[in-house]
């Protein structure tokens, strides 16, 4: 079968944006280094801490260990910049983060970002999953992550094919493992 190289590609743009930290190194870096404004332009509506919390939340909603934080951060950047001149959107983000932190404090942690286990953070998210705040973040991620063409190769999806002549000579029928039990 014609297989797809699913290893993350580090573009020049990504390198410039992230300094010398490669995506591969980032995957092994401690969480504290990866979150917040290390990955992003300075937030314009929320604080740096709030931004970091939203990035953590984004990863907890659609956790793909193969994806660096910059991809989640990019989605949050979009929400942050849209909230710059939209008071209601800004309030939703800030109040949402405050609610996450309150829930974490209720569990004896300092903030959502300091909750060490994903299971416990997910429990917090489950308690708020019907809120407009949660649904806004989740809905934005659905396209922000899965409709991000840069990420498609990492999921084994090739996208547009017409300009390459379709798949008629590129593996539409190349499955070779059926009948191997």
């Amino acid at each position, binding site marked *: 079968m014609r297989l797809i190289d699913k290893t993350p590609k580090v573009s020049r743009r990504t390198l410039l944006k992230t300094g010398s930290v490669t995506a591969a190194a980032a995957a092994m870096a401690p969480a504290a280094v990866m979150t917040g404004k290390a990955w992003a332009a300075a937030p314009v509506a929320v604080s740096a801490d709030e931004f970091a919390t939203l990035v953590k939340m984004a990863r907890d909603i659609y956790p793909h260990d193969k994806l660096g934080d910059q991809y989640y951060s990019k989605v949050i950047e979009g929400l942050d910049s849209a909230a710059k001149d939209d008071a209601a959107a800004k309030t939703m983000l800030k109040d949402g983060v405050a609610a996450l932190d309150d829930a974490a404090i209720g569990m004896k942690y300092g903030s959502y970002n300091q909750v060490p286990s994903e299971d416990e953070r997910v429990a917090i998210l489950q308690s708020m999953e019907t809120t407009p705040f949660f649904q806004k973040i989740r809905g934005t991620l659905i*396209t922000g992550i899965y409709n991000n063409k840069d990420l498609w190769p990492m999921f084994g999806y090739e996208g547009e094919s017409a300009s390459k002549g*379709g798949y008629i000579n590129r593996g*539409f029928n190349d499955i070779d493992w059926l009948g191997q039990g």
Partner: protein
Amino acid sequence: MATFDLNDAGVVVVVGSGAGGGTLSNELAQKGIKVVCLEAGGRHETEDFQNDEWGSFVQISWLDKRTTSGSWRVAKDFSGLPAWIVKAVGGSTTHWAGASLRFQEHEFKVKTVYGDIPGANLLDWPITLAEMEPYYDKAEFKMGTTRTNGIPGLPGSNNFKVLEAGAKKLGYKEVHTGRMSINSEPRDGRGSCQQIGFCFQGCKSGAKWSTLVAEIPKGEATGNLEVRPNSQVLKIEHDASGKVTGVVYADKDGNQHSQKARLVCVAGNTIESPRLLLNSASSKFPDGLANSSGQVGKNYMRHTTGSVYAIFQKPVHMYRGTTMAGIVQDEAGNNPSRGFVGGYELETLSIGLPFMAAFLNPGEWGRNFAGAMDAYDHMAGLWIVGEDMPQETNRVSLHATEKDQYGMPVPNVNFDDHANDSAMREHAYKQGSAVYDAVGALKTFHTPPYPSTHNLGTNRMSENARDGVVNKHGQTHDITNLFISDGSQFTTGGAENPTLTIVALAIRQADYIAGEMAKNNI
């Protein structure tokens, strides 16, 4: 290309340019009849289409305001999008996947065969398979349907090969790459399928039959057909005798025009067609046009659908190649011992990563969901298409307060599954999983129905005027020069993708209209 005057009262106005309207327009034009086809959407040609799920969705989908109600899950997950259909020249034939199946004989007379099903508003069609066969022949020839007229089947994709291997292990016999109106070899001035894989987004090679590439250009070449895009019909007008006289439509700038007509054929798909009849209510017809039966908008059907996606140890790359060229037909017959009447088809289906995220299990999040998405390239998928029960309460009605950009009430679509629908879907989910389990699936997912692509029944055909909206020719029982020409005519839905039947009915209707016009009956 012909253009006709707004005051030309000799033209036939066709509302909509999809499978019904686009085919009817061409058929009438070929017979020398002058046609103005008013299409609500814009004209996007083959080269304009996009291999991009969300980009294409925004380009061609019908996204005008609609509301939903009822217990169907679409009302919760996609409350403003009851149907996934198209607003563009070519209508939903730009989006359809090409599966072209004839109804089975019993599906034209289900009330007789199934008997009384509590809660179902069943009725026999006023036509039989034998009467339809010559028109199915013409439709298949016109559309170049594979496995008819000596046209070879399409080659099997990876997704098909998985389905085929599993189905055969399970003992299914009727398994093949489908009867598809997608060229498996060059035909009718169009090339053969390049296995591009974006059938739903508008075929970029032109291999797939659509009214956009196959019917409308031929009709236009006669000099008898004018297709007017960006022309949304708001109201059908009539005279004191009750005959229709023309339509009012809005152009792309919202300016309203009145087009006179000798007769009007409505083919706006199953939500817009009844909406237009209801929005055309007048002092003479206070309940809407052609609605003496009270059935306009009722008996909305959407097929009993659902998908099964399976994850395998090794890659499948299901998105490579024709979306729907694969079928298992063994469950399509009526076998009530399964616990339901009617039957269903299992057809290959693939969607890209962006739509998989939206549709696999709408609203789900967390590790399970992300894990499934991580295995996207190891997935195979199928779609269930089964007969659903018509129910009077499943209906398109006018919203009491919400208005569209032209000030017209928007349609609300109310839907609840019938117990028969649910029993069929559960059976199909189980069989679909068994197909994939037979070839080593690690996990299978039962995906809920997408926003409806097969929308049927809201102006149904009936022998008696009290039971339905149109007669066996799609002519409304109440108004002789008003016709319905789309899937809203369907008395019941059958287990088959509806386009072939819509096209066959349009060819048949064109013969009838030409005959009645020649006799000056209309």
